[in-house]
């Protein structure tokens, strides 16, 4: 493929999905810097293999590469896969998010902020095989078919992981709530 056309196509088909790539990498990994490194490597990989991409879903293709890049790195480092957002990051983002959503509703703000924090913590504590399908389904709005293709697993597995993941998340969340959300 002509180099210029390749870059142009890459720009159009892959680059727009940078945020999806980063969001997935961030939920899989341990911190902001790590996620950025994974995403950068994934884009380089994607560009290198772009000639072989003949599909029509650039996002699913890219996310598959992000996930692969993460797992390669994870296997090498043999680190735990509990995602742990930095405290300040979690709070900072949460504040922005809350302030956008609840600007007209200050009295519910505190309660909601607290439950949002608990939910994000619970999601971090979820085993990675559940967390990744939930991020893909609930945050990226991918279909079972897209997730199955991306992860190279049967659709039935996607379904059962989502079901079990949601159950487990509810359990974690309940335990946290009963603790009064004590920090």
């Amino acid at each position: 493929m002509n180099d210029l056309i390749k870059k142009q196509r890459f720009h159009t088909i892959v680059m727009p999905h940078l945020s999806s790539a980063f969001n997935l990498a961030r939920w899989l990994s341990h911190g902001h810097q790590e996620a950025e490194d994974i995403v950068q490597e994934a884009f380089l990989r994607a560009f290198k293999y772009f000639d072989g991409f003949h599909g029509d879903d650039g996002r699913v293709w890219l996310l598959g590469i992000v996930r692969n890049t993460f797992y390669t790195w994870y296997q090498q480092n043999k680190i735990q896969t509990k995602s742990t957002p930095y405290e300040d990051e979690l709070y900072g983002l949460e504040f922005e998010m809350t302030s956008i959503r609840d600007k007209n509703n200050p009295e519910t703000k505190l309660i909601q902020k607290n439950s949002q924090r608990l939910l994000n913590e619970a999601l971090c504590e979820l085993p990675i095989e559940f967390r990744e399908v939930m991020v893909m389904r609930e945050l990226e709005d991918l279909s079972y078919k897209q997730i199955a293709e991306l992860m190279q697993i049967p659709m039935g597995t996607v379904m059962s992981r989502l079901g079990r993941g949601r159950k487990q998340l509810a359990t974690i969340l309940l335990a946290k709530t009963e603790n009064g959300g004590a920090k």
Partner: protein
Amino acid sequence: MNHEQAQNLLPAYVDKELSLSEVVDFERHFNSCTKCQLEYQEQARVSTLIKNNALYFEAKPELAERIESVITVDLSKAFPQKIQGHFWNLNWPGSWDGIWGSKGAIMASLAALIISTSLFFATPSAQEKLTEELTASHIRSLQANHLSDVISTDQHTVKPWFNGKLDFAPPVIDLTATGFPITGGRLDYINGKTIAVIIYHHNKHPINLYIWPNTSGDSAMHATARKGYTLVHWATGGMNYWAVSDLEATKLVSFAEKLQAQVSVN
């Protein structure tokens, strides 16, 4: 269907991923099973909770710039250096070609795009500036909820609305039959000029089509992306066209091609 089978399929029912016949089968048990109904509520509750409250981590603009710069430089230099980087050690499946190659031919429309090198490189700053301006305008139109000055799904209402407001008559093309209905029109201010915008929709995704007179020659169709939005530009018949949307590039190019074909017929 028995209780156990229904329990297994429950997540797919929550996610509306069952086929119609599966739904009928499923509901035959579900409608009379309190346990399954409670489980459904719990699954749906957790799903909504995550959708509405989990953090979505946006990439910082610096990351985009970093990636751009690495990809834009000579790859033969950039790549080996990155491979020796601190964590990348290949255990790469190497079979992406196999996995994805089977999916069929390269998107015909994109492959057919002719990239106008003169347009892209001769005046990068002007072109860049315009692209930025159009993207900003597109985002503004979504945020301010000010997509349309005239709201109509009828080209015969939208077209005359522009009369007397502009010193040119923008082509207003009906593409409803191909899945891109018109939803309105407005005036906008781009590149120091008052210009026409026709708003189309495709599956709830708005498309802003910017039109103004073209003083230089025709240019071939050209797609680019900014901040997650796709922009497709071409110029024919004395008009400049820019389509901007969050649609997949292939879809937006297909829209542009259909439009271009209609413009040349009219």
